[in-house]
């Protein structure tokens, strides 16, 4: 073991021998991300619908949910679940906390995207569906939501990228995710932070970069190919969401 530099070759060698540790963390991160994404989508659709409802109460519920979870740091929310929920008799594993905490947090962002998507569909569409005998849920499921997909897919994908990055909050709860594994491997061993962090970064990057690049490509293609006519309100909403780069 020679060389004291943070990136000395022997440090890389050690990491290579222990690569199972990082891969294990990588799998955990992927699992938490996938499940949290499902939760966020479910919540996003539910609260997105409530946000476009005719009923004031439902719109109110949407606002409370979105504002509450968007304006409190994810880390504080997750810490609250971790430290305060057991006092109320609710004990979750850190994995569960990751899925639920990150899912609810990003659900708020997803619901804003879906709300803007629904608002972008001209009212005539739901009037037409109703005149054909569709009830509210059928209208949404068969007529409105399928039409929104093209518009909301790029912002949703960006949300997925943010969600994956944000699963790293679990590190602060010793959550066995990729970032935690990299960090603890270094701090409990030879302090080889350099290689551990670089490898963790590369693993995050290989998931997030293709998603983000695809989202950009898809958005550009849709804009170029189809001249989707949006109502003026919807255009404003989508502009806001596009401009609001969300953490």
């Amino acid at each position, binding site marked *: 073991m020679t060389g004291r530099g*943070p990136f000395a070759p022997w440090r890389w060698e050690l990491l290579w021998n222990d690569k199972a540790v990082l891969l294990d963390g990588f799998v955990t991160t992927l699992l938490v991300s996938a499940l949290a994404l499902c939760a966020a989508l479910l919540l996003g659709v539910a609260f997105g619908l409530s946000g476009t409802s005719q009923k004031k109460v439902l719109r109110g519920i949407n606002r409370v949910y979105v*504002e*509450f979870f*968007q*304006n*409190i*740091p*994810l*880390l*504080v*929310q997750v*810490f*609250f679940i971790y*430290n*305060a929920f057991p*006092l*109320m008799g609710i004990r979750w594993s850190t994995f569960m906390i990751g899925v639920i905490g990150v899912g609810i947090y990003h659900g708020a962002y997803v619901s804003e995207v879906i709300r803007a998507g629904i608002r972008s569909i001209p009212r005539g569409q739901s009037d037409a569906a109703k005149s054909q005998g569709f009830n509210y849920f059928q209208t949404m499921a068969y007529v409105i939501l399928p039409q929104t997909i093209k518009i909301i897919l790029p912002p949703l994908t960006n949300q997925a*990228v943010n969600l994956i*990055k*944000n699963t*790293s*909050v679990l*590190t*602060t709860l010793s959550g066995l995710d990729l*970032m935690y594994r990299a*960090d603890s491997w*270094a*701090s409990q061993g030879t302090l080889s*932070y*350099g290689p551990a*962090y670089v490898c*963790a*970064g590369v693993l*995050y*990057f290989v998931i*997030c*970069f293709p998603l*983000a690049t695809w989202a950009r490509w898809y958005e550009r293609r849709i804009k170029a190919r189809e001249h989707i006519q949006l109502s003026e309100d919807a255009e*404003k909403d989508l*502009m*806001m969401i*596009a*401009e*609001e*780069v*969300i*953490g």
Partner: protein
Amino acid sequence: MINALQDIFTPSNTKYLLTGLLYTILVSIVTVGVSTVFGTVLALLRNYERRFIGKIAGAYIEIFRNTPLLLWIMICLFVMRFGTTFFRGTLGLTLYTSSVVAEIIRGGLNSVDKGQFEAAQSQGFGKIAMFIWIILPQTFIRVVPSLMSQVVTTIKDTSFFSGYAIAEMFYRGKVLLAKLPGQGATITGTHTLVTYGSVALIYFAVNFILSCVVRRMMRRKSS
């Protein structure tokens, strides 16, 4: 509940927590400010410089945007060997935020009408003068709301410092909870609930007000 509130919010504890809030806000404003400068340079290079250095700016933006903030905070804290913890933490946050801000600025640059470039050139502006006097002012006016909402995001992001003994608000909340027994309070579950709950509420109040302002500006801008 009342007991816990009395134990936690003694004048000195309240002051301690609110000083943390002040640091949180100051760090966020400085971070977004520095990131705006650095992000503008990155955005200009990525958009208008087709050679090597433009590619580097692009790579920087993509690398930082597609990896977690916590990674960069940790790299600055544990791999770099200069400055105080506070400085290195803020550096990590700034490096990351710069990439996000760069994309906001690029969005603003792309929304400036092409005619503005041609008009500036026809009036004999050099490239740099054109950006400074004609293009960037229009860009900044457009992105002010987005930059403000980036302040909200950054305020939330500073909570990551709490794991590394940087005395922003969330860290101080945790310390406060740990100090209570020494102040003669018997800690109950309610104390934990109230402390974390209050910190969450303070974050909420600050960010909610800021995001209402942002929304207002956006609405006014687009009408």
